[in-house]
């Protein structure tokens, strides 16, 4: 391309500046080819999950097409944030109790990784770290305070994982992405369980196309989780109209207690 550029610039001087700009643009385009050239697409079937009274989690399927010869890793995560958790430790050598607070920085509340094969076989460590793909990468990305050594950090990150996996907020699976070949394109599909423990908020689904240990393309989709109807009204009221909410809670409880008392009297309880 530079040869073309040179030929043209020698012919028309006034066009030189424009062409220089174009050439810079082309070079930039080539540099970022990994996002522009391939035809990866991603679509989540549920981009909007409504939480109503009967909500007990959901399923989210992610599908799209990718270049043949690439393998996929799908990451579903909430934006990174911080979390403070109580830490249990031994007091006096025998008693377990809360001994302090551990702060976790740069950790998403929900983090779910689905890879075509084992992560380490697909992606080298630098790439894992660059895109924060996989628990080991997340552990290097996260900051924990207070910890005194790398060993201690690793230990507490493991505890953090256990805590998150227990409430289904962190998952990691491999080999669950279905691939089908059609018209020279590769279609993929995965069905994931959406945990009811995931609070309302915006979640990002990122699909990474991987080749030769590197990410060559990526595509994004969003999942928005929102409370709806009476659930939304009650949750909103508990926060923004707390006094009235408290008052209603108490009056309802008093009413229910009296009501049941009256029913039992009519039912002919003993004297």
């Amino acid at each position, binding site marked *: 391309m530079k040869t073309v550029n040179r030929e043209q610039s020698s012919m028309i001087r006034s066009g030189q500046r424009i062409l220089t700009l174009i050439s810079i643009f082309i070079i930039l385009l080539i540099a970022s080819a990994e996002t522009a050239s391939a035809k990866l697409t991603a679509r989540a079937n549920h981009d909007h999950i409504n*939480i*109503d*009274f*009967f*909500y*007990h*989690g959901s399923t989210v399927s992610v599908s799209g097409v990718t270049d043949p010869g690439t393998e996929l890793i799908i990451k579903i995560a909430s934006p990174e944030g911080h979390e*403070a*958790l*109580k*830490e*249990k*430790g031994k*007091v006096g050598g*025998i*008693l*377990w*109790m*809360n001994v302090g*607070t*551990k702060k976790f920085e740069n950790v998403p509340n929900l983090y779910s990784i689905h890879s075509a094969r084992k992560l380490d076989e697909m992606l080298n460590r630098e790439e894992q770290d660059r895109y924060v793909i996989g628990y080991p990468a997340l552990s290097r990305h996260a900051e924990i305070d207070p910890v005194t050594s790398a060993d201690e950090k690793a230990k*507490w990150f493991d*505890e*953090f994982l*256990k*805590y998150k996996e227990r*409430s289904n907020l962190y998952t990691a699976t491999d080999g669950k992405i279905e691939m089908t070949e059609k018209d020279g394109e590769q279609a993929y599909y995965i069905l994931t369980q959406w945990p*009811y*423990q995931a*609070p*309302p908020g915006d979640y990002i689904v990122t699909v990474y196309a991987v080749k030769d240990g590197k990410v060559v393309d990526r595509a994004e989709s969003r999942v928005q989780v929102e*409370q709806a109807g*009476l*659930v*939304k009204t*009650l*949750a909103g009221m*508990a*926060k923004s109209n*707390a*006094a009235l*909410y*408290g*008052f*209603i*809670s*108490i009056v*309802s*409880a*008093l009413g*229910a*207690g*009296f*009501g*049941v*008392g009256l029913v*039992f*009297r009519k039912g002919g*309880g*003993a004297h």
Partner: protein
Amino acid sequence: MYLYLPVALTSINILIPVGLGLAVGLLSGLFGVGGGFLMTPLLIMFGIPSTVAAATDSNQIVAASTSGTYAHWKVGNVDFKMGFHLLIGGFIGGLFGVQAIKVLKAMGNADFVIKMTYVLMLGIVGTYMFAESLNAIRKSRNRTAEAAPAQEKEGSFTRLLKSLPLQTRYEKSGVTHSMILPIGFGGFVGVLAALMGVGGGFLMVPVMVYILRMPMHVVVGTSLFQILFNCIEVTFLQAYTNHSVDFILAVLLLLGSTVGAQVGAVFGRKLKGEQLKIILAVIVLLVTVKIVFDLTLTPSLLLTQAGGH
């Protein structure tokens, strides 16, 4: 069937809260305790965040204790005068308790002191009640005819109590005490309850039985009356300052607990005071043992949700 809880932000099988409510309500109607020492840890076990569990439980107890107080009042087992005096004490004690927590937190070993106080209190109260009621049951078996007169051996402590000013007759309980006594001991229980973050029914009941010498059946009714007011206050404060009362969870719990409290009250009338005391003592001791296990066995998770939001 599952329902989503808007404040707890989790989904729960409705049979769990209704069943828990029924069981704890039964204990409440039987023994005059709120049952927070059982309910709160159980709710946490089923995935409810700890702050929401405690706050919502107090909302539920408002319903259960209304139901229970009403059932006991119908048969004349609520001493309102005594209840009011205990409440005054409890209210003042609660204020001191909250300050005491601040002091302990500043000293940095709040958790240890609070847990130890809790275990010791439960253990001492449970053991004492168990031993005493076992003794009483044995005695009443040995000499069924002349049980009452033998109790009238006045110690110096009893004489001291009788010499206090402001002596008042508590008609329903059939006792005469200085007003200072229920207010003072109500305050003592209030301090401890605030410290331990529990309603304190399991402490108030023994105070009424052993110190105020009230008959067990009146104790149960009066304790529920007193708990009702405490829990109204706590529910409001929790809803107002912490936004941690889950209305839907409270409704599910009270569906069970209001009925349980009625059944408990009816069932309790069929049992003797001593029998009630010994069963309560066993429950308190079992809870003590459970807490001791929790403290000594390695927990499966070393990280837990922080208390406040």
